[in-house]
C-alpha cells in the first residue's frame, strides 16, 4: 500500500522515462516496476554477458551485479533489489548494498512506513531473517515464511527447530517446527506451523498449528487453543478487539471461529480470506455456500449472487460500509460490490481499491491485450501497454495513473470525475 502523503497530487501528466530507449540500449530488459508515487520506473537490464544492472528512469545503478531480481519499491518509494555480487547475495536499497552478505536472500517485506526492510536469508546452510541488513544470530535448519509487524520492529518466522533425519516420520510426529519471534524460538514444537501474523501493536503473534497428525488449531504466543479442528486456514487479529479469527472445519463444513469458539452460525463448503472493517466490527470472507459456487459472506450472510470459478479476498471500504471483491465466472474476471457483480467483464482484474468515501471502486483490468482503468463498472477510455494499480488521493478527488503508452512511461494525476466519465 503506497503512502499517499508521498505522492505529488498536482494535476497533470509527466513523462518519466522512454522505455523504448532502454530497450534499444540493452540486450535484455526484464519486467518494469513503477514506484508507488509514480516518479520512478525500474527494471533489471543486462549490461554485459555476465553483468546486470538496475536501471531507474533510464539511469543504471553504478554497481555491477552478477544477478538482480525481485525489484520492489517500499511504501516510502525506496527501491529494493535482491542482488548477487562476488557470488554472495544481499539486498540493494536505492543502489546501496547492505554490508552483510548471504548465501541467499529472498522474500522482501516492508514495515508500514517503509523504514524497515526485512528478508529471509541463508548462511552456512542455516536459515533466518535479516532486518535492515542485520541478520539474526540464531539461525535454524529451515525457515519457510515470516511476518513483519506493522512498525517493522518484530519478526515472527516459521522455523525448523529440530533437524529431521531422512524419512524419519516418527521424529516428525514429535514436532520439529516452531515460531521464532525476533530470533527466539517458542518453547512448544509442532508438526507444522503456518501463516504467522501480528496484532496491531506488533506484540502478539498468532499462527496456524498442527498439534498431531489429524488436529489443527491456532496458537497465540505459543499457547494453542484447547479446541482442535480437522483443518484451519490463516488466522488474523481483529482490529480493536482481542480476538483472533480463523476459518475452521467442523464436521466436514467450514465456519469462522474466534478464540476457539464458533463465531459464525452458518456452515459453508469452504471459507477463507476473512477481512475486517477498519474498526473490526464487520467481517467479510470468501465462502462456498454450496459445492462449486463461490461468493462473499459479510457478517455470516452470504451474498445471493454466486460465481462458479473463483472469488478473491474481499476488501472493505475505509468507512466499513461497503465490500468489494474480484470474481470469476465462466473464465471471465469481474468485480462485485455489495453483492452485485459489475456488468463489464475482463480478461483479468487486479485488486480493486475504494475511494476514501467508499462510493467508488476502481481497478486495473485487462482486455484484448491492453490495460485499462475501470471505475464503478465504467471503463475509462485510455488504454495502456503497461499499467499499475490506481492510487486515489486522500481527499478522493484525484487518481494517480501510472502507465505506459507508445513505450513512454508517465505518471498522471487525473480527476476521479474524468475517469468516471
Amino acid at each position, binding site marked *: 500500500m503506497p503512502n499517499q502523503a508521498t505522492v505529488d497530487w498536482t494535476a497533470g501528466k509527466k513523462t518519466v522515462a522512454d522505455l523504448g530507449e532502454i530497450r534499444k540500449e540493452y540486450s535484455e530488459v526484464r519486467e518494469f516496476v513503477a514506484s508507488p508515487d509514480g516518479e520512478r520506473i525500474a527494471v533489471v537490464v543486462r549490461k554485459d554477458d555476465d553483468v546486470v544492472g538496475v536501471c531507474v528512469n533510464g539511469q543504471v545503478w553504478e554497481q555491477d551485479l552478477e544477478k538482480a531480481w525481485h525489484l520492489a519499491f517500499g511504501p516510502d518509494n525506496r527501491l529494493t533489489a535482491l542482488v548477487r555480487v562476488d557470488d554472495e547475495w544481499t539486498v540493494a536499497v536505492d543502489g546501496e548494498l547492505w554490508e552483510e552478505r548471504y*548465501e541467499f536472500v529472498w522474500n522482501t517485506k516492508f514495515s508500514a512506513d517503509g523504514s524497515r526492510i526485512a528478508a529471509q536469508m541463508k548462511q552456512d546452510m542455516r536459515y533466518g531473517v535479516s532486518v535492515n541488513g542485520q541478520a539474526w544470530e540464531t539461525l535454524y535448519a529451515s525457515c*519457510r515464511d515470516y511476518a513483519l509487524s506493522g512498525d517493522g520492529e518484530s519478526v515472527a518466522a516459521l522455523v525448523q527447530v529440530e533437524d529431521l533425519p531422512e524419512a524419519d516420520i516418527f521424529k516428525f510426529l514429535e514436532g520439529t517446527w516452531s515460531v521464532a519471534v525476533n530470533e527466539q524460538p517458542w518453547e512448544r514444537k509442532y508438526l*507444522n506451523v503456518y501463516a504467522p501474523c501480528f496484532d496491531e501493536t506488533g506484540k502478539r503473534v498468532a499462527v496456524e498449528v498442527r498439534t498431531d497428525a489429524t488436529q489443527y488449531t491456532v496458537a497465540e504466543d505459543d499457547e494453542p487453543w484447547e479446541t482442535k479442528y480437522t483443518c484451519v486456514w490463516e488466522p488474523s487479529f481483529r482490529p480493536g478487539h482481542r480476538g483472533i479469527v480463523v476459518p475452521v472445519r467442523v464436521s466436514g463444513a467450514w465456519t469462522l471461529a474466534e478464540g476457539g469458539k464458533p463465531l459464525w452460525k452458518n456452515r459453508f463448503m469452504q471459507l477463507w480470506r476473512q477481512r475486517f472493517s477498519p474498526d473490526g466490527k464487520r467481517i467479510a470472507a470468501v465462502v462456498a455456500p454450496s459445492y462449486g459456487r463461490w461468493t462473499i459472506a459479510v457478517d455470516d450472510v452470504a451474498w445471493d449472487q454466486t460465481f462458479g470459478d473463483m472469488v478473491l479476498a474481499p476488501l472493505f471500504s475505509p468507512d466499513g460500509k461497503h465490500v468489494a471483491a474480484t470474481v470469476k465466472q465462466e473464465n471471465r474476471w469481474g468485480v462485485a460490490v455489495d453483492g452485485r457483480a459489475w456488468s463489464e467483464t475482463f480478461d483479468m482484474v487486479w485488486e480493486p481499491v475504494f475511494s476514501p468515501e467508499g462510493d467508488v471502486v476502481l481497478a486495473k483490468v485487462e482486455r484484448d491485450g491492453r490495460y485499462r482503468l475501470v471505475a464503478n463498472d465504467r471503463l475509462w477510455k485510455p488504454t495502456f501497454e503497461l499499467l499499475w494499480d490506481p492510487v486515489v488521493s486522500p481527499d478522493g478527488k484525484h487518481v494517480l495513473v501510472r502507465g505506459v503508452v507508445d513505450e513512454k512511461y508517465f505518471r498522471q494525476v487525473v480527476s476521479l470525475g474524468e475517469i468516471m466519465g
Partner: protein
Amino acid sequence: MSDPTDMMIADAGIDEGIKKLTPERIEQTIRHVLDNESAARMKVYLETCVHCGLCAEACHTYNSRDRDPDYAPVAKVKNTLWEMVKRKGKVDGPFLKNAARIAFTECGACRRCSMYCPFGIDIAYQIMTVRRICSLLGLVPQYLQDTTNSHAVTSNQMWVQPDDWIDTLMWQEEEAMSELSGARIPLDKEGADVFYSVIAPEPKILAQLIGNMAVIMKAANIDWTMPSADGWDNSNMAMYSGDFEVMGRVERAHWERAAQLRVKRIVMGECGHAYRGAVYDGPKWLAWKQPPIPMVHAVEFYYELIKSGKLVIKRKIEEPVTVQDPCNIVRGRGLHDKLRYVIKALCEDFRDMEPRHEHNYCCAAGGGVINCGPPWKLSRMKSIRCKADQLAATKASLIITPCHNCHSGIEDIIGHYKLGMHVKFINELLVKAIDLES
C-alpha cells in the same frame, strides 16, 4: 493366495503405527470414515458388486502374478473394505497390516478395472477409502508418509528449500540462455499468459527439464512465468496417502499462487498424478467443481504449439519409439490422440503399444505405489510383469513417458526385466527436435 514374501515385508510406517492402536480407535476411525466421509456411491458399490470377477482381467497385478485370484480388484476390496464394513470396524492389527499392504502397494488406483466391470464400479475409489482409514490410523508406508510430511511442511514433495528452488530456476535460466539467446525463466511475472508448474523431482534431480521448458517457451514466444514462492509444485502425494487435509492445503497453494500472479492459465509439466490432483481431487476437496483457472497438461500444450506452428520440428527422432499412455491423462482425460499427434510429429518410427489408449496398463508406479519406496520395489516389479511383456513386444528402443511416475516406474521395469530400452520425457525430445533458428 497373496505372495507370502510380500506379506512379510517390514515397513516401519505400518508396523510401528499398528503398535499404537487400540481396538476403540480402530473402530471409531473406520466408522467415522464410513459414516461421515464416504459418499453415497460407496454404499451403492458395495451393494451392486455381484462378485463376477470380470474386473480381474483388467488388473496388471492379477495378470502379472499368474492370475492369482487374490490380486483381482474385487479381492482387494473384499479383503479390505468389505471386511471393515462387515465387522463394523472391529478389525485387528494383522488385518490392518494386510489391508494397508493391499491398498498402498497392490493397487495404483489406475481405474482400468472400472472399465471392465459391467456396473462401472470404481474399485480405486474404494481402495482410496481404505487408504484414508489407514492414514487417519497412522498406517502409511514410511516413504509415502515422508513425502506427505514434505508436502505438509514445504508444499512440495521433496523437501526442497525455498532458496534451492529459486537458485535452481536461475541456474536453469542460464542453461537455457546458452542454448537459445533470449531464453528466460521470468519469476513472478504478474499477468503472464502462462503459469508453468512442475513437480519437485524436477528441481531436485531433473533440473534440465525446467531449462528445456525455458527454451521451448522462448522458441514458441510464450508470455510465461514461474513462481518464486510455494505453490510451484503441482504434485500431491498426500492425495494418495489419504491425508486429504494436506492434499487440500497443497492444491490451494498452487491455485492461489496462480491467482495472485493474475495468470490466464496454468500449464503443468509432464506428470499424470499431479494432473489428477490439480484438476480433480484437489479442487473437489476444496469445493471447486472445476479448476478455478484453466489448466492444461504439457501434452496438450505441446500439441497446441506444434499444431499452431508456434513450434516447428526440424529434426525427427529416428530410433524406434513407443509410448506409455499415463492413466491419469489418458484414461482420466482422453489425451491419447493429442499425445500421438505430438509423438508422430517428433518421431520417424513410432510403434504403438498393445493394448493402448484408455486400455493401456498402468506402470505400477502411479497412485503413490512407487513412493512406498525401496521396501516394496521387488513386490512392485512382480506386479508389473505384464508391462515388461507389453513393452518388449513393441520392439522399440525408446519409451516416451509424459509422466514422472511412469518414467521412474518404467525405468525400474527396464532394469528389472533387462529390456535394454530407455525412457525419455517429450520435453527432452522436443528441445532437440525444434527449429531454434526461425
